């Protein structure tokens, strides 16, 4: 993967820049020692590393504004960072950039149950948002797998989803307003604790903009009353096609489970070896979770069971207790860990129309066999968001390249059948060069024009999302 050559003028101005950053921030908020900046050399896309020029960890919106104004004046690029959990390299630095981390901005500013919102600083972790309200019976719905660690800032930047977004939507459906600092240093308030924008939906385009339009420092989030209970059911099938048909029938029937998760045989085996969750040995496994009162859950599961039995499941196991629920989710939740235990892996994130599920799974099996790499599939089946995990050996020369090429081919397949490159992880640097597969030049140009408005000098996270040749003239000017 290519990154632009660092700007020698900026590298030469390093000492002056750091002195000026120290002039606008408290001493402990500027990190310049190479031994310490190394901690910021990558995010969760750990295959690529590059230490930044400096790291700043501001505590207030005013401090973020001061840093951006300064960097803007000096022509220094800024890479925003939430908790550094991006799988797409969204906060991957360049040698000539300042990384701006919001981790120290983690306060709850206001909680209002009557109006159903919480206002937080965006360095707060996803789970800590729910943590602030759950004792009173509320929760924040989007639940990315990394929710223990990931920050709301990154959730907003990537428009993060999660297993339960089938019912509750993704970040953009649960975001009411933001305080955003533009690269110029200007602070803009957008939206608020009401339902819609008076003018253009700027909030909608900021959410998912991968830190390229501004740095969101505070957010109004929709919170929801916690359901009375939840219960999963596990079902095994003799073929991926059958499991796929069962998913379509559940959706068609108008049932609205909060989650429908799918695992294929390689994934089931790896998870079983790793977590001993007691999964059946079969080709495909579904975990379906429903919510409500005990009686409501019974009624929904009865309906789901009727549908499942029509597809001759080889296993059907309803949770009868908290312990059984935990065990059903255990394997699924340890899927990435289980894979990491047997090999290095690359996690893809394409979305496909759910009707294409059987075809795409079959093609992935053929494509992976042809290059000699294993692929395990675990994903959110209800909305077609796939997570093929390609296993490779990082110590074997050429294996990473082989894996990346297979990954690119699988994502192209997703687009070919009517889907997209990324459903919830974002483009970052990882899928940047595949964008022309999904978008033609006019589509991309329209997106670049939006960035031109928010960041005319292209200093904010500039080498991401779009192919470098497409943005070259803008980044150079």
């Amino acid at each position, binding site marked *: 993967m290519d990154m632009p050559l660092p700007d020698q003028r900026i590298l030469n101005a390093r000492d002056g820049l750091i002195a000026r950053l120290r002039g606008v921030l408290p001493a402990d908020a500027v990190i310049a020692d190479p031994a310490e900046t190394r901690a910021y050399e990558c995010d969760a896309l750990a295959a690529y590393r590059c230490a930044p020029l400096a790291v700043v960890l501001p505590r207030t919106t005013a401090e973020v504004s001061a840093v951006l104004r300064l960097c803007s004046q000096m022509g220094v690029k800024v890479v925003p960072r939430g908790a550094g959990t991006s799988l797409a390299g969204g906060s991957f630095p360049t040698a000539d950039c300042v990384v701006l981390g919001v981790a120290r901005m983690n306060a709850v500013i206001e909680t209002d149950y009557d109006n159903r919102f919480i206002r937080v600083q965006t360095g707060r972790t996803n789970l800590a948002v729910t943590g602030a309200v759950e004792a009173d019976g509320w929760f924040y719905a989007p639940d990315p797998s990394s929710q223990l660690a990931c920050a709301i800032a990154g959730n907003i930047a990537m428009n993060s989803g999660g297993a339960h977004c089938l019912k509750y939507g993704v970040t953009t459906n649960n975001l009411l307003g933001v305080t955003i600092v533009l690269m110029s240093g200007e602070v803009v308030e*957008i939206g608020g604790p009401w339902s819609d924008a*008076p003018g253009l939906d700027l*909030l909608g385009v900021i*959410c998912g903009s991968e830190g390229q339009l501004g740095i969101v420092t505070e957010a109004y989030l929709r919170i929801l009353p916690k359901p009375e209970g939840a219960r999963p059911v596990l079902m095994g099938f003799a073929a991926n096609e059958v499991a796929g048909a069962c998913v379509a029938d559940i959706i068609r*029937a*108008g049932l609205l489970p909060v989650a429908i998760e799918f695992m294929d045989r390689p994934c089931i085996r790896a998870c079983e070896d790793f977590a001993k969750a007691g999964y059946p040995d079969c080709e495909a496994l579904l975990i379906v979770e429903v919510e*409500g009162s005990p009686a409501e859950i019974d*009624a929904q599961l009865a309906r789901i069971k009727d549908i499942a039995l029509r597809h001759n499941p080889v296993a059907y196991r309803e949770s009868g207790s908290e312990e059984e629920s935990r065990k059903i989710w255990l394997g699924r939740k340890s899927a990435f860990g289980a894979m990491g235990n047997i090999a290095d892996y690359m996690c893809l994130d394409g979305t496909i129309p759910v009707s294409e599920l059987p075809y795409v799974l079959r093609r992935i099996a053929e494509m992976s066999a042809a290059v000699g790499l294993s692929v395990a599939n675990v994903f959110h089946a209800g909305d077609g968001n796939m997570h093929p995990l390609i296993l490779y050996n990082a110590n074997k020369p050429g294996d990473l390249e082989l894996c990346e090429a297979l990954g690119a081919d699988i994502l192209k397949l997703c687009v070919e059948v009517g889907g997209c490159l990324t459903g919830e992880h974002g*483009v970052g640097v990882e899928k940047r060069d595949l964008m022309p597969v999904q978008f033609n030049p006019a589509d991309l140009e329209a997106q670049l024009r*939006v960035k031109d408005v928010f960041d005319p000098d292209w200093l904010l996270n500039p080498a991401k999302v779009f192919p470098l040749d497409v943005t070259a003239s803008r980044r150079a000017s």
Partner: protein
Amino acid sequence: MTPLVLQPQSEAELGEMIRAAEGPVSLRGGGTRGVAYGPGTVLETAGLSGISLYEPGALTLVAGAGTPLAEVEAVLSAQNQRLAFEAPDLRRALQRHGVSTLGGVVATNASGPRRVQAGAARDHLIGVRFVDGMGTVVKSGGRVMKNVTGLDLVKLMAGSHGTLGVITQVAFKLQAVPECAVTLQTQVPLSAGLALLRRALGSPFEVSGAAYGPFGAALRVEGMEASVRYRVASLKALLGGDWVETAGDALWVGVRDAQGLNDGALWRVSCKPTAAEGVVAALAGVAHQAIFDWGGGLIWIAVQGLGDAGAALIRGAVAGVGHATLMRGTGAAAFAPEAAGVAALSRALRAQFDPKGILNAGIMG
């Protein structure tokens, strides 16, 4: 002289018309719900009509922007599915005629009472194609449920009132029609009624409508029959008082369409639910009628007898807690003035997408 009406029959033809346009172009789906018409040559999208993809098993529909909403609703209804956001029919309220189209629904980010549970048009729109002010065709999103590939121009187009481009095709995710719906009603004074609505919305019993009007306080519960029964009983126990159960959706259609607010200026106020009472209190002594939706988060207000349509009173009361749009009437700007930073960004976006400044010019301020 009757102005020439442009009626493109294809996206390509529309692109040519916009490229060739030398003056302002006034966009129309069916002309049934826009707050205002832009100046210039009328361009109608009715020719860009037809459902190109409908997969009930994937809850997905793709159709031309000129497709009548009623046609789509009929097709979905036959499969027991629907657009969950309940686009209002504002023809009576806005004194319009014509046929509502999907493009207009998107361009105004339409939504109804179910917004408290399911969101607005923007939350169900998964893909869009449009022709920008230079005549270039652009697409964003697609036909899948989850998609974060590139900037979300889908959201930007929703509610842009035709000022960024002419929408040519839209893709929606759909919802299955639940087997049962029950409405609960009780006659209580405004303040107590709004408090009941907020309490219900703060309960785990999944209310899909929470309104107050001449009918009193009303709640809607939808879902599987056993579940609806349980939640209705739970809500009654939680809220106390005397609640009457009714079936049918007439009350919600009335709330959705602002029915009965036919005299004077008509405002649509979006605000913090707890601020709703204060907004209407600002009109003390002025003849007015109001319907509260979204637990107070939306207020439709008809105001009679004020030269500025009540703008000073309403916009003064809602400052800092929401905003007010003048849907019908004169004497004030339709859209609330925006803060300087937001206005500058919006202006710059319009200049990027419509550098000639010809698309529904000036209607959003």
